[in-house]
């Protein structure tokens, strides 16, 4: 190989195109082969850079043209069009296609398209070192035999195999008759149609286009060739071609299938992949994680473990903060403000510390909950749970496409409603938006995590899980109902690619937990603080006693409804206060029930019966969504009618479920 040849020694000049996908080492190879002989310009009429250089091999000079990096020759991009035009218009003697050995399938697609153009090709199999590092073994001679063309292994970055590549190129140029590659064939259903089309375009296609290639591209639906062929064929021939093409619009599936099957055969023949490492581990774990039965068992166990951790670690810490920190702060406030007006001490101790202060004690619960979810997400498990739930929803007749935004609802219903934007059909989007508030969000789960131990002690974990399952069952039933009535049982088909399992990143999880708990703290210091002050004011004025307060008067008008569910007016008011933000449920309970020495949990346990508590928790989970969610529902549906319909539906479901649960619990022997 000589980059600066003596002209006198040369007999012929070959035109060689260097083709390949982006980032396969094509430029490195071009630089190594041409050295200082390069010159750079633009492709005629295009803004794409054209690089050329020369090299010599024995008595042959080669003009090497570096084609733009392309994935195929479909002329979807300017680069693809330039490469295709070069091959058709300039008739290169040889195309050297550079392929990334570590991603052979992807690269062979381009080769399949080059071979259809009937241009002689030498395959430079680059990055073999990368492939080997990934455990991928490629037998180049087997690939060569299967493809029926020269395959030269190279490592361009180490200047390995370049002489052999140039020699193979020179040899093919000298012996073009030896080039008989195994070309991809169009899959059976449309072979006859292609033959028919070839006959129709024969004699219509001007040089330098190949009529057979034009026929194939027409059947493939290639926009540029179709436009050209329409002009070539004229008014007499084109209508017949057009009728045939319209009758076989999906022929592209068989053409492309032929290429993929061809790639599959080549790879099966010559490539051996590792059966160890991350991919294999993912396969092994997924045998269980996405199994129709075990997948559900694992999903349920994982969520049970998250709740167990929350109850075991975070709830005791929350109780300590409630009793010790907030309790002492309230005592201190009362002491410090003893000489001030009574309402001021009550505002600080009961309204601010008893409401918003109490909500702040949930920071450990939230931190643990978010930490667990982030961990599951970062390992890749949550994607599996989405897949498992998707099957579950399909089985129940729910709109399967809704799973992703609905799943986001476990964090917060607001992004769940907004996430419905990924669904392109209006009906699917609307159904998802209507169902999103039924997903128990983190705020409601926090209320659940706090109240179930208070009411049910050691039975808190199974009760909490049962309530979440009940919540999801209601979601499924409402989904079925809406799907069968408003949306007439749409059937959707999905293909899913799950991410590999992954070692969690502590920094990412930590940052996520911090961001979310800090956001919660800011919310407690703004919306919840304001709502707490309003609730306190309504519960204090005009007389300074709860029983004669404005809130009591409002609450007592609702008392008959509460009676059906075993709840007194204070619990109803707490539910209503949750409309501002779900955390307000606890803040309001803290204000209305007061907190004795044992904190709110002990006060509630002493004053609320188990049947009432169960009904209260059920209604809390199913109740109308918070204000932010309602606002986003209105924004995303663009309709007050649908928003209010959903609010009314949820209200009816929540109250109906509360009544059923309360009376069912009493029927089963629970204290009412």
């Amino acid at each position: 190989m000589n980059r600066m040849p003596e002209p006198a020694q040369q007999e012929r000049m070959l035109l060689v195109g260097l083709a390949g996908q982006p980032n396969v080492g094509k430029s490195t190879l071009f630089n190594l082969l041409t050295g200082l002989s390069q010159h750079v310009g633009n492709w005629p009429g295009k803004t794409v850079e054209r690089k050329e250089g020369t090299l010599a091999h024995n008595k042959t000079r080669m003009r090497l043209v570096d084609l733009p990096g392309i994935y195929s020759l479909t002329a979807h991009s300017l680069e693809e069009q330039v490469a295709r035009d070069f091959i058709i218009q300039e008739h290169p003697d040889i195309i050297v296609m550079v392929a990334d050995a570590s991603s052979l399938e992807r690269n062979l697609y381009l080769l399949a398209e080059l071979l259809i153009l009937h241009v002689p090709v030498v395959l430079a199999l680059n990055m073999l070192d990368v492939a080997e590092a990934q455990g991928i073994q490629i037998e180049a001679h087997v690939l060569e035999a299967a493809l029926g063309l020269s395959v030269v292994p190279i490592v361009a970055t180490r200047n390995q195999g370049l002489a052999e590549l140039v020699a193979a190129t020179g040899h093919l140029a000298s012996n073009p008759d030896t080039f008989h590659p195994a070309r991809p064939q169009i899959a059976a259903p449309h072979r006859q149609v292609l033959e028919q089309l070839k006959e129709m375009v024969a004699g219509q296609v001007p040089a330098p286009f190949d009529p057979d290639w034009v026929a194939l591209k027409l059947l493939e639906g290639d926009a540029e060739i179709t436009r050209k062929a329409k002009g070539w064929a004229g008014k007499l021939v084109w209508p017949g071609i057009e009728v045939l093409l319209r009758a076989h619009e999906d022929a592209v599936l068989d053409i492309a299938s032929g290429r993929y099957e061809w790639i599959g055969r080549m790879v099966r023949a010559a490539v051996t992949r590792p059966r160890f490492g991350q991919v294999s581990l993912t396969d092994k774990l997924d045998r269980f994680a996405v199994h129709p039965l075990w997948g559900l068992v694992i999903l349920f166990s994982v969520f049970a473990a998250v709740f167990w951790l929350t109850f075991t670690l975070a709830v005791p810490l929350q109780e300590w903060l409630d009793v010790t920190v907030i309790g002492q702060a309230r005592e201190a406030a009362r002491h410090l403000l003893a000489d001030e007006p009574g309402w001021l001490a009550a505002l600080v101790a009961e309204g601010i510390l008893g409401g918003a202060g109490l909500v702040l004690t949930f920071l450990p619960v939230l931190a643990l909950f978010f930490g667990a979810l982030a961990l599951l997400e970062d390992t890749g498990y949550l994607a599996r749970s989405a897949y498992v739930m998707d099957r579950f929803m399909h089985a129940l007749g729910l709109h399967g496409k809704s799973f992703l935004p609905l799943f986001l609802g476990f964090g917060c219903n607001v992004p769940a409603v907004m996430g419905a934007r990924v669904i392109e059909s209006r009906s699917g989007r609307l159904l998802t938006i209507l169902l999103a508030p039924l997903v128990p969000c983190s705020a409601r789960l926090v209320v659940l995590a706090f109240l179930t131990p208070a009411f049910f002690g050691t039975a808190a974990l199974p009760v909490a899980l049962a309530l979440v399952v009940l919540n999801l069952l209601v979601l499924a039933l409402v989904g079925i109902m809406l799907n069968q009535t408003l949306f007439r049982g749409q059937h959707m088909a999905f293909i899913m690619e799950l991410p590999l399992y992954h070692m969690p990143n502590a920094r990412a999880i930590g940052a996520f937990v911090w961001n979310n708990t800090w956001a919660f703290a800011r919310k407690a210091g703004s919306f919840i603080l304001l709502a707490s002050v309003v609730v306190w004011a309504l519960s204090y004025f005009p007389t300074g006693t709860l029983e004669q307060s404005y809130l009591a008067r409002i609450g007592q008008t609702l008392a008959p409804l509460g009676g059906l569910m075993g709840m007194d007016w204070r619990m109803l008011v707490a539910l209503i206060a949750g409309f501002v933000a779900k955390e307000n449920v606890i803040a309001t309970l803290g204000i209305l029930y007061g907190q004795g020495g044992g904190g709110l949990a002990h006060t509630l346990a002493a004053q609320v019966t188990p049947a009432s508590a169960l009904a209260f928790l059920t209604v809390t989970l199913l109740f109308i969504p918070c204000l932010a969610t309602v606002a986003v529902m209105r924004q995303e549906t663009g309709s007050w009618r649908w928003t209010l319909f959903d609010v009314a539906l949820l209200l009816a479901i929540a109250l109906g479920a509360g009544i059923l649960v309360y009376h069912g619990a009493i029927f089963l022997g629970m204290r009412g």
Partner: protein
Amino acid sequence: MLRTILRLAADLGTIRCEELARALNTSPELVRLALAELARRDYLQAVAPDCSTACEHCPLRAAFLYRRQPRVWVITRKGAAAMGDRRIHFGLTHVSDRGQF
């Protein structure tokens, strides 16, 4: 192969790339390429974004479960028509197909 992918997805409701690769006796990499081709030619539509390149305004980005989401494709009207599958519906029934809901 491409028709088989569409058919398997339509028959099973939901299918993973790995299951498709096993059913087609090929590699997941080749299945991914085929899926990209089907999406490029409007037989499939990507519904769950690949969040590695999600923009700042993506609604999913506001949530906490966005980094390792599955990539999801759904069969389009064109894909269903190519199979002559009447079970897959895309139109609306009681809900207006124009303007707001």
